[in-house]
């Protein structure tokens, strides 16, 4: 087996739903030893969210849970009991990283915050992921993806022209992408802390605000508003989203050679040679006039035809694709972006892997997502040295 990038890094993940588990997954998929700690009896709330095969809810068959928890070990532990907290401390003693997503102050209340844990393991890195961070007036606010996405400005920043927006409310991005963003940002900071620890030998606490993680992805636009209180309205890009016979394409022919290539793709219509098409700012000024001409042309073609012909000429163009089209896309398949994983309950399914092909330490599958408490014996008996009788006792008294 190939070596892994994070071989030997021991991670405890005490998180639910998307952000924290995605952070744990990113590390687990590159070889970290990640133990996912779930509260009995139900475990991670993602187990109750779909998609489910045949839409029949089943705690071991949630597509959300299965995707976000690959390559992890799963144990159950009740942090609401004194014995559970004691066991947790023993796990934290052996860990390099703890990822947790409790509301600010909750881990301190049960004596499992960074201050308490670093006293028993000074090398421990604790990554806390919350909607707004550990400080500030919103620290206790509850926020789901919908709330955070709209609060961080993302829904009001567009490439399309403002006047093309539909009347009514702005929309949240699909796929809870903003919650993944929080996990990805946390994973970057966690790896940086692990790297720093090679030199310092010391752990630290990382405070991740999902709000700020999202905000930082719009740093250019946020800074624009911060420094230009009343910026001129942006007229929009000529091109952008355009209708086709069978869907839509997106065209970003912004630089002059790209516009030339697009003109060629359109068969050099006379209007495209007009002074109004001279450069991007000029085209943007005449967007109302030019956009319908472009769309009149695009709607007569298929999206994949425009994609391949356009790219061959040097037009940055891409089709709007469904997941089905992506899963059958030769480019992604040939690169091995999808992998089959076997799961004892959910069966053999195809999963997206990762965007990076690392020559020495590739993304790899060790195991599918854990069943609830699947690795209790392996972790409690194998690593912490509890006897089978003690394990039975922990199960009986509600510790695990």
């Amino acid at each position, binding site marked *: 087996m190939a070596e892994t990038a994070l071989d030997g890094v021991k991670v405890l993940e005490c998180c639910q739903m998307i952000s924290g588990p995605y952070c744990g997954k990113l590390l687990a998929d590159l070889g970290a030893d990640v133990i996912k700690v779930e509260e009995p009896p139900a475990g991670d709330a993602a187990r109750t969210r779909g998609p489910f095969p045949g839409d029949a809810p089943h705690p071991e068959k949630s597509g959300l849970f299965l995707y976000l928890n690959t390559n992890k070990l799963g144990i159950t532990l009740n942090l609401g009991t004194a014995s559970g907290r004691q066991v947790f401390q023993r796990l934290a003693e052996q860990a390099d990283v703890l990822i947790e997503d409790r509301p600010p102050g909750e881990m301190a209340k049960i004596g499992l915050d960074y201050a308490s844990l670093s006293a028993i393991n000074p090398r421990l890195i604790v990554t806390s992921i919350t909607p707004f961070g550990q400080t500030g007036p919103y620290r206790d606010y509850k926020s789901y993806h919908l709330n955070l996405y709209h609060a961080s400005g993302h829904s009001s920043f567009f490439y399309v022209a403002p006047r093309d927006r539909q009347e009514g409310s702005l929309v949240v991005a699909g796929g809870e992408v903003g919650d993944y963003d929080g996990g990805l940002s946390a994973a970057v900071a966690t790896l940086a802390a692990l790297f720093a620890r090679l030199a310092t030998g010391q752990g630290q606490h990382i405070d991740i605000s999902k709000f700020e993680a999202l905000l930082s992805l719009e740093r250019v636009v946020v800074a624009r508003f911060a420094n230009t209180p009343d910026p001129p309205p942006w007229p929009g890009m000529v091109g952008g989203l355009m209708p086709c016979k069978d869907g839509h394409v997106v065209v970003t022919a912004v630089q002059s050679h790209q516009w030339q290539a697009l003109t060629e793709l359109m068969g050099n219509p006379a209007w495209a040679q007009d002074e109004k098409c001279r450069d991007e700012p000029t085209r943007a000024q005449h967007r109302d006039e030019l956009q319908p001409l472009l769309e009149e042309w695009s709607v007569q073609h298929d999206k994949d035809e425009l994609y391949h012909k356009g790219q061959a000429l040097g037009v940055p163009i891409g089709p709007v694709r*469904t997941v089905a089209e992506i899963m059958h896309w030769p480019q992604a398949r040939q690169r091995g972006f999808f992998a089959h994983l076997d799961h004892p309950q959910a069966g053999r399914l195809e999963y997206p892997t990762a965007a990076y092909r690392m020559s020495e330490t590739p993304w790899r599958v060790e195991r599918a997502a854990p069943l609830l408490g699947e690795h209790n014996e392996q972790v409690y008996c194998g690593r912490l040295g509890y006897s089978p009788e003690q394990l039975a006792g922990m199960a009986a008294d509600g510790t695990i």
Partner: protein
Amino acid sequence: MTTGPLEGVRILDFTWAWAGPHATLLLSFLGAEVIKVESRRRLDHTRLRSLMSGPTMTGPNHSVIFHDLNVGKLSLTLNLSQPKAVEIARRVAQISDVVTENMRPGVMERLGLSYDDLKAVKPDIIMLSSSAVGATGPERAYAGYAPTFAAMSGLAHITGHADGPPMPLSGAVDLRVGTTSAFAILAALYYRARTGKGQYIDLSSTEAASALIGHTFMDYSMNSRVQTRMGNHDHMMAPHNSYRCLGEDKWVTIAVACQEEWDALRQVVGDSRLDDERFADASSRWQNQEALDHLIGEWTASRSQEEITQALQKVGVAAMPLLDGQSLVRDAQLRERGVLEPLQYPLIGERLTLSPPWRLSRTPAQIRRPGPLLGEHNQYVLGELLGMSSEEIERLVAEEVVY
């Protein structure tokens, strides 16, 4: 200044536009020394113009977009069409830990700066190539930008109103790609620190966006179902929407995940029509969410964003105002946490700049300097790092190798 976690790591950065520079921006926040290679012959186009730029740029050193994406970096101007410049780039690679680039696949090879070329001079180098759809496969030569990544990744198709067109989002998709690159580079750095081995990382921007909505692919795997746009609604939660409030174009989002939150919301709203059995449990609320949205919308319409947010948050219901650029700048949470900090730029003056998005207690991330002027650090890199004499550097400038 305290030490960042990547203190001592040097990055030779050939990236331009948004995605690549965001990756090295994050690594610069973390303490890496990032040397950006640029040239007057082929300027990073964010130095010249960019979508949504607002104020007109007067020259390559005045672009606010460039500075926002390149704070903390150093600039070395090399005209890579000249063999001497390529040779200098190789010498800098020799004393670097990481090389990043996002040119079209094949360009670095033609320049003589491929992974194999650089590995020959620095055996443990880490190199990341970021491209539209990856450096391998039948479409490797294809180009793209944030909106095409959003379109081709599946993200655009599931974003938008149910009866409206798909939405390719914004430049944030590029920054997501950059964050993914930073993660992969950090993993490679950690591996190298422990084994002494470098490696090559081939990153597909389109795949990076797909990975961030991974579970929607699982629905297709399981059920051959293609999820589509549903506005602000959710697959399970209701109410789950953006509601109009008092004021011009003011909105608040409210999302309810469980019975406890529903009961709390009902108490605050105090409308007996919400006690109807159509809204009794999660599944009936979801079935009847249009009626539910209507009733909640009636309640929000006569109240301010702040009033609604505070009343609902007090009882544990997730409610937040929809904020736009102007309101974000005044936001109390961001102010308290110092998220926008003034930074002095040599030619454009003081500008509020977004701080790094993580708080590390022992080795904090921070902005070390403003974005570089074109070629600002030629003397440092060529003179101090490579040991060239002033005469040598002057000659390279005259020959337009350093250009």
